[in-house]
Every structure is written in C-alpha cells, then in structure tokens.
C-alpha cells in the first residue's frame, strides 16, 4: 500500500529520504466539504522515530501554508534542511528518540500529495482549476485516514503552527476521541478579514501573470513565476514584525554606497524579498498556492457550529496547549485567547502561553527557547499522564 511519493519537481538531493506515499482508491474516497469527493488520492508523508508497542507515542505534525512533510530531514527536492529541525529530532523538544513523528503533505499541496498539479485520472491532464476546493477540515479528514492506515487508534498529540495550528484545532473538533493533546501555535479559529485580504492580493498577483494561463499553465508549458513570486513577497512581509524587519535590514543599502536613483533594488529588504520570491517559485506550485490560501480563508471553526466556538469542542475534548507570540500581527494573541476562553467555557483542559518575542508570526519556526520549553513540557506531561 505504501510506496515512494512522486514529486512535481526532480529530486536534487539524491541522498535524502523521500518518505512514503499511500494511495486511497474508490473504495475509500475522500468526501470533501464542497460536496465533491476524490476517489483516487495520494497522501505523501514522512515518519521519524519508532512507533512503540502499544502505539501510544505518535505525534502528528501539521505543516503551514507553504510547508511540506519534510519537517526534520533534508527536503529531497530543494536539498535544504527540514523546516522544523530546531523543534523536531533526537533530543529536541519533539523528541524522535521518544515519539513517533508523522508529518503529511496536505491534500491540495504539491509535494507528493494529491493537488491541482496532479493529473486527473478521468482526463489524464493536470487538474488545474478543475481540482475541487479543499478545506482545512478536508486536509484533516485525509490525515485521519492516513493515521488509521498506519494502525494508530489514538495520537498522543497533534502539533502545528499557523495553518498547521488550524489543523490541530480541527483535529480536536473532528476527532476528539482520537488525540490526547493538541498544540495549536500562532493560529486562530478563523481567518480574519485582514488575513483574507492579504491572501487575495497573493492570488490576484498569480492570476494576473499572463503565464498563469487561466490555471492551465502546465498544459501550455508556462510557469507563472512572476505572479507567484509577488504573492510570496507580499505574504512574507506578514510573517515578520516591523521591529524584526527594522533590526534585520533597517535602511541598509544592498551592495552599493549610495542610492541609485533607479528602480533596481537599492535596499537590502528589497533584495531579501526578491530572494524569498525567487526561491519559492522553484519549489511551489502556483495553483496549489491558490487552493491552500483559499482553504485557510474558509477556515472558521465557529461557523461550523452556529457561530459558537465553544460548541466546536465537546466535553471529551483533548488537552490543549495554545501558544501565541506577542509580535504576531497575522494571528494576534487575542485570537488564541478567544480559543482558550471557548475551551474554558466547556471546561476543557486548556493552557495558554504567550511567548514574548519581536520575531512576528514566523517566531514559531525560529529559535524561541520558551516555546521549546512549553512544547517539551506539554508532550512530557501527556506522555507521562
């Protein structure tokens, strides 16, 4: 059942572990919130560490918008280190010597799981915009099928930052009996108007690129790199704080002594954003970006329960540890606190931690010792309880 995943782009790091892929056929279709279903779909995933005898040490990590399953090992396509090696690995806060860590590429993604860049078995052509819209709940539904496939009845924990945190919340709402603890980090129970607005700017940048070709760029042999790069540049600003940008770049000039009086990048911050955009298009699919940003926009856990967030979580809710960062203006602390209050209202076991940092939303990916302490303590307490 498990096989090697197929990536959109060639493997550049032949030594890197490519992980696994599991295919679900018409006997186990993925029913989607939009009303359609995928009767053939693949979930590509990585695992780290060993599952113990009673299968009680599995930790599912959910990745963010542009993340993938290569959380703690080199990404075979980019050759770069895993995106959360600072958090996950032997002796790390999510200790792969103790825990069996699973991380899967979300449905709609472009690192081996079924998404818009994959061929539609019905036509033999890439799905493009004919791919159904997926939601965070759909992503979690697919993960639950994978976890079941791995023979794990109950996860020790689901951990994730940003969109990964949304998935962790959705796990608690959809499958409260199948997870003992959830750690939503730097996220919210719904996407705010401001967040939707930024995503729409990114999507419009992609769709305004003539090479996007109405979403059929694969068939036409083009790549909307310019649009996708602009989308990434705009989004990247939202991941940082004003203070972090100022500290890192200020008004420092890039490789020059004086202003050029032209529009070539004068400032370091411009070069930095250009680099972020350019390196992103080498690893990410433009249509996937449209689909996954839409999934985040649609996320509103309270709306699924007549507007009452508390109703999303029942009396048998898992333990929660919610983390926010003081300088995260994309998913501000108030959003995390409102989740904690909803959980308190149903007498769930919830801890809320606000980490002081000036690194903005991206802090969850960075060296934040207090966050490491929280994560380590929460998992140890779960494993010991």
């Amino acid at each position, binding site marked *: 059942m498990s096989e090697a995943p197929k990536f959109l782009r060639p493997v550049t790091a032949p030594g890197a572990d490519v992980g696994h892929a599991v295919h679900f056929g018409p006997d186990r279709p993925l029913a989607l919130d939009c009303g359609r279903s995928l009767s053939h779909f693949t979930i590509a995933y990585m695992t780290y560490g060993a599952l113990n005898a009673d299968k009680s040490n599995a930790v599912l990590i959910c990745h963010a918008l542009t993340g993938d399953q290569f959380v703690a090992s080199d990404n075979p396509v980019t050759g770069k280190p895993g995106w959360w090696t600072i958090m996950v690995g032997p002796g790390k806060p999510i200790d792969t010597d103790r825990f069996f860590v699973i991380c899967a590429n979300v449905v709609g993604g472009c690192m081996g799981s079924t998404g818009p860049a994959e061929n539609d078995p019905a036509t033999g052509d890439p799905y493009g915009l004919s791919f159904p819209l997926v939601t965070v709940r759909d992503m979690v539904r697919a993960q639950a099928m994978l976890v079941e496939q791995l023979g794990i009845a109950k996860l020790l924990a689901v951990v994730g930052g940003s969109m990964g945190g949304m998935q962790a919340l959705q796990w608690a709402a959809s499958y409260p009996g199948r997870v003992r603890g959830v750690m939503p980090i730097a996220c919210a129970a719904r996407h705010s108007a401001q967040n939707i607005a930024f995503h729409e700017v990114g999507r419009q940048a992609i769709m305004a690129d003539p090479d996007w070709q109405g979403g059929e760029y694969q068939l036409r042999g083009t790549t909307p790199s310019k649009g996708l790069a602009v989308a990434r540049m705009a989004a990247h600003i939202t991941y940082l704080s004003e203070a972090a940008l100022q500290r890192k770049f200020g008004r420092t000039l890039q490789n020059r002594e004086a202003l050029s009086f032209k529009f070539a990048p004068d400032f370091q911050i411009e070069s930095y954003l250009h680099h972020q955009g350019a390196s992103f298009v080498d690893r990410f699919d433009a249509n996937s970006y449209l689909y996954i940003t839409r999934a985040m926009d649609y996320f509103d856990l309270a709306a699924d329960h007549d507007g009452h967030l508390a109703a999303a979580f029942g009396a048998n809710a898992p333990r929660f540890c919610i983390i926010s960062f003081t300088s995260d203006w994309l998913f501000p602390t108030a959003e995390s606190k409102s989740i904690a209050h909803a959980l*308190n209202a149903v007498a769930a076991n919830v801890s809320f*931690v606000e980490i*002081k940092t000036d690194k903005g939303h991206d802090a969850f990916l960075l060296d934040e010792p*207090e966050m490491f302490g929280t994560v*380590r*303590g929460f998992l140890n*307490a779960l494993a010991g*309880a």
Partner: protein
Amino acid sequence: MSAPQLQGLRPDLAAIAAMIRPGTRVLDIGCGDGALLEHLVRTKGVDGRGIELSQQNVNACVARGLSVMQGDADTDLSEYPSGAFDAVILSNTIQATERPRLVLEHLLRIGRRTAVSLPNFGYWKVRLALLATGHMPRTRNLDYSWFDTPNIHLCTLSDFLDLTRLCHASVVEAHALNEKGETRAMRPGTFKAGRLGGPNLLAPGAIFLLKKA
C-alpha cells in the same frame, strides 16, 4: 492549631489546600510554578486551573500537566463567567495588583469561596522599622526597595478586612501566619467583630476564606 504540614508544600499553601474540598473546581490566580495546584489535583482530585503571569512559571505548570492560562489578574478575570468555580485562590498576590478592589470583586463573583493570603503591613516589625529608621520597611516577606517593589498596594490585615466589607464579603475562616509561614486559626470573634486586634499587630501575614455575604 496548625494546618497539617503537607510534604513539600509551603505551610501557607498547605493551609489554603486544607480549605479546598475534594473534587471541586478550583481556579488558582497567580499560581506560580503550580505547586499548590498540582497538590490539589493529585491529592484532592480537584479540577484545577491556573492563571500566571511569568513565562517561566507557566512553562513549569505546563510541564506538570496543569491547565494554566498565561495572563494577568488585573485584566483577565473579567473574561471568566460568574460562579464558574467552587473555589478561587489568590495567594500572596492581591498586594501586587493594580486594582485590588476590582480583583477581589471578580474573585467573589467567579468563585463560591475565595481564599486570599496576603502580607500584613501592620505587623509590629514593619511598624517599628518605619518608626525607628524613617525608611520604608524591608522584611523577610517584603524584601524590596520602595522603587522597585511589585507590591504596589500594601495594606494591613485590618485594611483588608475593611475591603471585604466594601465588597460585601463575609469571612468564613481566617488564619494568621507567623514568620515561618506556619498558620494559626483565628477565633471567629476576632474577625466577626469587623476589627482585628492581635493578629493585625502580631502576624506577618494571614489567609482569609471569604464568601459573598
């Protein structure tokens, strides 16, 4: 009569623990590293929640498996529904809040019983230090310079008793603390009259169990 000494628990915390009934819902505000809360969860099976400001302490609580909200008693109590807890604990914290009266009103609203411990600025050594030296007193419990102390609303035990009356609370029981933090129950006559004679002069601190009158 001293509260029984519980293993590893500070005597003043042990005295508060003795006031908590098994199996109840308890909110510990300013729960520190969670020592009291963990004790209550383990030995009394309470459904315990904490609020704590310090990052280090919050992490210690999480590592103990406790449910703790990082937050501030001055701002966050308004978000808790009335009557949500059987007991609310405020241990050695009220003197560090910005609005002690508002905090106490919230405590009485949120919990059916409220346990408050506090240092006594009317303690004879404090009085004597001010009289003898002319400087703000520094004691074992309150070892800060006036300009960097977190204790911005110090009071005497009699002052606190006045506040409980302003908040329409009645004292269910009260315990005087000595310098070692050991407790001694006050006779109801001592506090029922609305005036504290001996303990206000002789005790460095006290614990009050309150309820809405």
